């Protein structure tokens, strides 16, 4: 086989995947495993830290080290893992509930601290596992089970938040373009410091049918139409009001990560203490 399949990292006995027909979690999982294969990661060098929710179940299907944590706190556990052993590749799997709603504060501080983690936030615009309640990323006026006449709040821009908080790498892609998604994950994994990939994913059972997208394929078509590069987004009149969003690489910096800064501070203390 000439292309990366990622199957060596997949726990095949756990198949079929638990997610609904057309769910973007499976696409993201596949892209991530292919990225691992392209980077030739060894299974014992990778730690996958997941939170709670549909996407949080992804660690069941991965053959690397895995840590299934409490809701919204995946980044805190991952910070601990990375600080204890900086040699590990730590990948944090969160949904929009984990990453932006309940764990929003952890996201800000992980980005500020510039921990060398790769966060993959699968944003499906609602709390899929608990019945489709609105989350912090649900777009304004969208129908969910707790906003039957439309969401009165605005949706969160996760990438904008991470950028402002100081992340080294931020990208947004949709599951409609799996090859590009894999490329972004490869870039994020290779980046030192906090890297975030926001994956726009369809919730084909709850969010789509309530918002005039009855079939899974309607959601993929919607993503292909609305996810545009930054240059095109800026040309469009009323892009935000029409529901367009920017895809692609949004931030790429090389600020020193936490582990590097920590070691340099420690060496200063050691020099003062006489080399001990």
């Amino acid at each position, binding site marked *: 086989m000439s292309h990366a399949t990622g199957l060596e990292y997949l726990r095949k006995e756990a198949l079929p*995947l638990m997610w*609904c027909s057309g769910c973007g979690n499976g696409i993201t999982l596949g892209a991530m495993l292919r990225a691992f294969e392209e980077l030739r990661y060894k299974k014992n060098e990778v730690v996958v830290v997941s939170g709670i929710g549909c996407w949080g179940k992804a660690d069941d299907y991965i053959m690397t080290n895995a840590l299934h944590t409490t809701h919204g706190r995946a980044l805190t556990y991952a910070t601990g893992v990375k600080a204890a052993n900086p040699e590990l590749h730590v990948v944090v799997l969160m949904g929009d509930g984990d990453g932006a709603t309940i764990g929003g504060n952890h996201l800000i501080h992980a980005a500020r601290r510039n921990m060398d983690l790769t966060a993959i936030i699968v944003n499906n615009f609602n709390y899929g596992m608990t019945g489709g309640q609105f989350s912090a990323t649900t777009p304004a006026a969208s129908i969910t089970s707790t906003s039957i006449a439309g969401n009165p709040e605005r949706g969160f821009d996760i990438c904008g938040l991470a950028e402002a908080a100081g992340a080294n790498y931020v990208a947004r892609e949709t599951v409609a373009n799996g090859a590009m998604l894999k490329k972004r994950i490869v870039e994020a994994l290779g980046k030192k410091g906090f890297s975030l990939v926001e994956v726009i994913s369809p919730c084909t059972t709850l969010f789509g049918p309530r918002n005039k997208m009855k079939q899974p394929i309607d959601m993929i078509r919607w993503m292909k139409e609305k996810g545009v590069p930054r240059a095109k987004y800026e040309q469009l009149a009323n892009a935000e009001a029409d529901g367009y969003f920017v895809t692609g690489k949004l931030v790429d910096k090389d600020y020193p990560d936490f582990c590097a800064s920590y070691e340099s501070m420690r060496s200063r203390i050691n020099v003062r203490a006489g080399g001990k």
Partner: protein
Amino acid sequence: MDKKNRIKFRPSVNETNCKACGYCQECCPKKIFEPSDKFNAQGYQYITVVNGDTCTGCLQCVMICPDLAISIKEE
């Protein structure tokens, strides 16, 4: 490369894992995927390969399959 010696691609769909979302049907430029008239154990009319010889190996179906059910072998 002439037609005879070109690499042949053999796409296949795992009947057990497929959930018939139809993404592969949508993205395939050669339209080689069709739903079966049979149901799998999960209750879906799984997708089958109807005209695999025309596959160009673009891998779009592999990249978009949410159930990791499609594989393409090269010959």
